[in-house]
């Protein structure tokens, strides 16, 4: 679908990219191919270098070394205004002294386009962002969600081949966020623009992306589709950052095991079924799932998710239980 490859503008290739702040290495050698038209998410904990990487792609930070190529042309030394990338900033950075319409028309206006063309494009973008009738307002007269849409419309008004988004939904409340997530995805599908999206919200990353780049301390930990990353994490960090995971250790090897892939059964008498046995330490109720912490002798605490609609209600703390899972459920890490 959207993740096309090959010709057409909007493919970015990043090679051995490094950024030092003084002696501190914020980006420590990143290689990444971003395909034309894909929705790529940079996911990582605070301080892992997501914004720094994005700012280097946008041209606001100089790379210490390495190369950034757009469709096989190096852009690493190009000033930001020449790169033609749209960007939605953390906090939106709308022009506070300009109306919504002037904000959206800015990119065309600085390119010296005729007034009529700008007006037509602004009207089109206002509609796309569902901001009809708000063109004459100032940014301060808009709600957070509306400001976010203005920022998006402004960044897309000049039809950039690539759109960079730095935690665009960070300031919105949860409900609005989910709504805007869907609108963003829909927009991406419709425009075919390459989206590079920064977030540290793993659910957002899973639900929106074609591919996710998990970052850690200025490096790429793992790249893949949400499904690949979730079902075949390669490191403990990747497994625990994207979703929850138990880690089973034996003979110096480590396996990741997702809580929802474990079957939990009540032990009958002396005989416990399954690969591990233990006792329920605590339980938390999350509406659709029950999360149990099970204390086992061999592997310590194991988290087990059980669909709440299964079984006959919650098991009391202290119940002896057996844990079982299918062969493929436990993923050997480091492979």
């Amino acid at each position, binding site marked *: 679908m959207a993740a096309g490859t090959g010709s057409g503008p909007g493919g970015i290739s990043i090679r051995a990219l490094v950024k030092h702040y003084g002696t501190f290495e914020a980006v420590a050698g990143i290689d990444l191919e971003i395909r034309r038209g894909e929705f790529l998410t940079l996911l990582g904990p605070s301080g892992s270098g997501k914004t720094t990487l994005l700012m280097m792609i*946008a*041209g*606001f930070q100089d790379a210490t070394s390495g190369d950034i190529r757009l469709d096989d042309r190096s852009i690493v030394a190009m*000033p*930001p*205004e020449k790169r*033609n*990338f*749209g*960007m939605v*900033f*953390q*906090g939106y*950075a*709308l*022009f*506070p*002294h300009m109306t919504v319409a002037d904000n959206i028309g*800015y*990119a065309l206006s*600085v*390119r010296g386009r005729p007034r009529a063309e700008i007006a037509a494009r602004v009207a089109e973008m206002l509609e796309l962002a569902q901001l009809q009738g708000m063109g004459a307002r100032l940014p301060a007269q808009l709600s957070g969600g509306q400001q976010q849409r203005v920022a998006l419309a*402004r*960044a897309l008004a*000049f039809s950039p081949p690539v759109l960079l988004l730095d935690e665009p939904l960070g300031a919105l409340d949860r409900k609005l966020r989910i709504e805007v997530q869907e609108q963003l995805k829909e927009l991406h599908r419709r425009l075919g623009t390459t989206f590079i999206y920064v977030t540290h919200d793993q659910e957002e990353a899973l639900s929106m992306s074609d591919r996710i780049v998990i970052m850690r301390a200025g490096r790429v930990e793992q790249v893949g589709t949400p499904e690949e990353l979730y079902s075949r994490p390669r490191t403990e960090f990747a497994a625990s950052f994207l979703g929850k995971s138990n880690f089973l250790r034996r003979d110096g090897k480590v396996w990741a095991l997702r809580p929802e892939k474990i079957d939990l059964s009540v032990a009958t008498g002396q005989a416990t079924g399954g690969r591990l046995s233990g006792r329920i330490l605590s339980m938390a109720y999350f509406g659709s799932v029950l999360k149990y912490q099970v204390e086992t002798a061999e592997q310590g605490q194991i988290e087990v998710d059980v669909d709440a609609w299964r079984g006959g209600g919650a098991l009391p703390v202290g119940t002896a239980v057996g844990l079982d899972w299918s062969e493929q459920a436990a993923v050997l890490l480091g492979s």
Partner: protein
Amino acid sequence: MAALTLRTSGWLLVLPLLGLVVVMFAGPLFNIFWLSFTDPGPGLSNYTALAERESLRRLLWVTLRICALTTLFSVVLGYCIAYAMTHAGEGARQKMLLLLLISFWISVLVRTFAWIMILGRNGLLNNGLMSAGLISAPLPFVRNELGVLIGMVHYMIPYAVLPLLGAMRAIDGRVMAASRNLGASPAQTFWRIWLPLTKPGVIAASLLVFILSLGFYVTPAILGGGKVLMVAEYISVQVLITLKWGTAAMLAVLILVSVLALLALMSRFMKLSAALGGRA
């Protein structure tokens, strides 16, 4: 109930001070106002003299012109300084601020005489130029309008820089980055984003400098060498030498009303307390 007593007791506390202000400030002010209508005789004669007497009109014109030029140069130079300070590193900015404040704190008298030593007939500049063979006779830098302007602009620059610096430091750097990202060159970004966003600071700085210039006394008196007469010096001459108190009072009222009008104008653009350095 408690709030009420607190309020009344609060008023009681400021009452002595309030009395002092009324007696020491409002009283003389009223006296000046009164004088302007009654001295030498009752009526509007002091005010109609403005229309009749060429010398008074010239006095006002010179004052306005010098104030306007001072404002222009101070704000333009102040804008450059504030811009450099905003974009300097933290350490450099602190040093620049210190230099600015030092010149702010030195007495206006000292600074004015320092300019005489630099710009006078036998001053540093003329001596330097002559010994370098660039000029044969001293250039008249002081005892004229140029000298007054140099001295006043020098004095006013800190007043222009401070509100401008406040306005510039309040600008979100991401807004500037957004402009570049949307394809604007650095020059376009300056004219279309930076300058409009600092406009309130420019207005505040201009009004502040203009208002302060209106009442300037020492610098024009010394650097003008008696040749460049501004309102404040003229008033002092009327009061101390020619004893025409009515004319002096009329001019004082005129300045006071102009300043109040300018402040009213300013308050339409921004919160006055913020422009004058306070908060909220």
